[in-house]
């Protein structure tokens, strides 16, 4: 069908009154797969569930959902559903289940692993209209929210009571709690406070069969298997969270942020090791290299010390007396490691200024490079210096610039591999460097993702980290809850279609296996 035909079927305003089932069918030529026909068949049913306003069928509108934060992967969704209630979500999923149509959950679309990449023959289930904070329950130190609520909005709502929501991914003002649950999002402060999974007490889940099930609640330790623990981080492959009970954490009495500048990454790395080694547990230790600093300066004028080859952002929080002692200790340790300037900020404004540079770093790289790949890998902290050196070598050998922004405290690297997308073959070369960095992580006993998730992007890289039996076991679990494979298919685990004939083949021997601590069969 021609574009113009689509366009004529479109609507003018926000209401998705667009084309009808007939048009949707017309988009599918007679040769369409049985599944494709099924999506079109669903449209009247979906409209009955969601109303005129809750379903997008116009192609130009659907196209705006073609990717999440990882734009390299694109696919126009069959239809877009914008439910406003758990019942609507359940009804849509049940419909998909009955017709064998895939569905893909999506929150704010900020994910960086294409975990919300739409299915062209499926339903994209967007929670952006389910954004009510249902309850801030201070007595029980929890918040009850709908999945589309932005992470930071929980903290905003809890702050007047002296509480906050601890997980703070750098997209926290945008990213949704439902997305955080799907990805088990961390953030700068997970070094001390853990990840989403450590802060979710209860979940209402629509299962792939379309049943609405309540797991846990305001009370901890629900009886039976820890399904909440397994659901968090399952990337939408086990269903859709429609209501989330999260822990609220008491705002620390005192928070101090230090910014320490070094003339080499090695010196910064030494400071990190000695801070951890001395038994200080900062809430965050972040590191940026010269290129990342340059980008942040260009974007937000964060005014980091001039000439720094590395900056360390260290945050300490807790009871005043403990924090004061730790600040002195960290200042001393940074100086010992060779820091040429350390700034200490305790007011909210000053701290925000230090964080501004760090938090904007990813997007800011857009200022110094036409395009870039954000990598996410983890190494044991003690392997950081070695791995960073190897990344520098990789960069030098390939002539591709790599900016480093990372959570140094827990060894979570975020190399930003820069390239010019206008240049022929540049993406492929950058992608190669990026993949080699992941290999480095696995080689050092780390992980292919610390917080961005596997999604589509790394599904084919799972065999580098896990053996065939591990992967088969993951799949066994997945199939136990989604036997028909309609929930976010082709994400998280390698499939022959995505990864070629032998998804289970492992390229490298995992160090655990090499050292005899783990075995493979």
């Amino acid at each position, binding site marked *: 069908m021609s574009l113009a035909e689509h366009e004529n079927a479109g609507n003018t305003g926000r209401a998705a009154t667009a084309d009808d089932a007939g048009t949707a069918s017309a988009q599918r030529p007679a040769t369409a797969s049985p599944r494709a026909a099924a999506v079109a068949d669903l449209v009247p049913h979906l409209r009955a569930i969601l109303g005129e306003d809750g379903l997008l069928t116009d192609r130009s509108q659907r196209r705006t959902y073609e990717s999440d934060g990882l734009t390299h992967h694109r696919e126009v969704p069959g239809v877009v559903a914008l439910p406003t209630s758990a019942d609507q979500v359940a009804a849509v999923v049940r419909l998909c289940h009955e017709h064998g149509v895939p569905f893909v959950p999506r929150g704010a679309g900020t994910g960086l692993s294409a975990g919300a990449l739409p299915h062209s023959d499926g339903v994209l289930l967007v929670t952006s209209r389910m954004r009510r904070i249902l309850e801030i329950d201070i007595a029980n130190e929890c918040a009850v929210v709908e999945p589309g609520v932005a992470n930071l909005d929980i903290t905003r709502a809890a702050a007047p009571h002296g509480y906050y929501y601890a997980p703070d991914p750098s997209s926290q003002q945008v990213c949704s709690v439902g997305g955080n649950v799907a990805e088990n999002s961390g953030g700068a402060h997970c070094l001390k406070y853990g990840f989403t999974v450590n802060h979710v007490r209860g979940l209402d889940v629509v299962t792939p069969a379309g049943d609405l099930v309540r797991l846990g609640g305001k009370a901890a*330790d629900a009886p039976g*298997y820890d399904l909440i623990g397994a659901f968090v981080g399952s990337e939408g492959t086990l269903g859709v969270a429609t209501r989330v009970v999260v822990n609220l954490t*008491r705002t620390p009495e005192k928070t101090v942020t230090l910014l320490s500048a070094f003339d080499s990454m090695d010196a910064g790395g030494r400071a990190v090791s000695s801070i951890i080694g001395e038994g200080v547990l900062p809430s965050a230790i972040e590191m940026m290299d010269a290129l990342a600093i340059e980008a942040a300066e260009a974007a937000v004028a964060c005014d980091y010390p001039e000439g720094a080859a590395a900056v360390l952002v260290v945050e300490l929080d807790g009871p005043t007396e403990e924090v004061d002692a730790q600040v002195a200790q960290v200042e001393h340790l940074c100086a010992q490691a060779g820091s040429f300037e350390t700034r200490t900020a305790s007011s909210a404004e000053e701290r925000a200024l230090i964080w501004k540079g760090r938090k904007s770093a990813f997007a800011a790289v857009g200022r110094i490079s036409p395009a870039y790949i954000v990598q996410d890998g983890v190494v044991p*902290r003690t392997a950081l210096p070695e791995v960073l050196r190897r990344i520098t070598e990789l960069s030098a050998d390939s002539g591709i610039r790599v900016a480093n922004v990372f959570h140094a405290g827990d060894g979570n690297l975020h190399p930003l591999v820069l390239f010019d997308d206008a240049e022929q073959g540049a993406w492929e070369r950058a992608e190669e460097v990026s993949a080699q960095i992941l290999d480095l992580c696995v080689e050092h006993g*780390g992980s292919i993702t610390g917080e961005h998730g596997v999604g589509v992007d790394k599904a084919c890289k799972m065999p580098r980290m896990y053996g065939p039996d591990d992967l088969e076991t*993951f799949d066994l679990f997945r199939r136990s809850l989604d036997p028909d494979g309609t929930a976010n298919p082709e994400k998280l685990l390698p499939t022959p279609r995505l990864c070629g004939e032998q998804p289970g083949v492992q390229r490298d021997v995992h160090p655990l296996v090499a050292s005899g601590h783990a075995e493979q069969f």
Partner: protein
Amino acid sequence: MAGSSRTPIPVVRDGTPQDTVGGLAPARVAEPSSTEELSRTLTEAAGEGRAVTLRGGGTAQDWGPPPRSLDLLVDTSRLSWIDHDPGDLVVEVGAGTPVADLYAHLAKEGQRLSYDPVRAGGTVGGAVATGASGPRRLLHGALRDLVIGMTVVRPDGVVARSGGRVVKNVAGYDLAKLHTGGHGTLGAVASVAFRLQPEPAALRLVEAEFEDRAGAERALAQVRESPVVPSAVELSAAPGTPFSLKAVLEGTPDGLRPRADRAVQAMGQHAQVHEGLPSGWGLRPTSGPLAWLSVPPAESVEAAALLGRRVGVEGCAPRGALHLSWPEGTPPAEVASVLEEARARPEWAATLVRADPGTDEAVDRWGEVPGLALMRAVKDSFDPDHRFAPGRGPGGT
């Protein structure tokens, strides 16, 4: 790939009266000394359709009902090894490693696993399989929060690893969550990797007793509102005794002095400050009926007041994670009645962990288990013939 060429060591022997679990004597007992041996043993057991139960230190064999059938008891005590990366604050241990050995090892490096065991003499595998966490879960998280990786041998003998040895990792499903507290019904835990912490320089215990509920509630609220950041706030109540609150503070000696003062202010001037933990800290009674009670945290003191007239109540008040303990020989009807009283409250869940021998018929151990259908689906996938600790799974699965 690893060692089918290695000479198999005899790992299986006949069962003895000491190997009895809940009155059932296993015909055979396996004592594997490696993950590979464990795998081979379980592969064989699968081929022969044998019912399997696991044993670590044997301290929790009376937790959960007796298995419905038992052919092979797998004793993990030879799966004992510690691989510690002090610089990374990570340790990986064999499931049969005694918790005490692990703690002694870590202490030499000034580190610890921030977990208070609830039983003495247990193994790491047993702690993980039962999943129960002691008082300091308040600040440091329950045991499930400290596990970063796990190797499990599935009921069909396949070895599967999830997670890893780095503290941050979201690759793949977090299957360790299912096995933590899974009571060995989904497979055999072979090894576990944990995140560690540096051992704090000093510790204070601030303790106070309260005659009435209002006093305890006020003190608890004030501790929560104060910025002292306790690692634990343990509440206890029992028939004929006052309410007691014990707050644990950890940190530097200089920092602890003012923090303890503020905790005393919050808990009342009669509160006492100690410089160490009492013996038996966090341990639950080793005999008599024992139940988990979880309530919305704001109702912890209410639960202690309501049920404390009939049964011992103790646990982490700010998490609402409590346990109930009765003297041995308590009539099952009384146990059942307390459980029913608790289950009648919205959002309260009570699970009987240990019953006196022979009383199982008289008490519903589980009550309603939300999500049971999903749990059954998981069980059916991993253990389709229900051979692993049959009857010990959620809702009696």
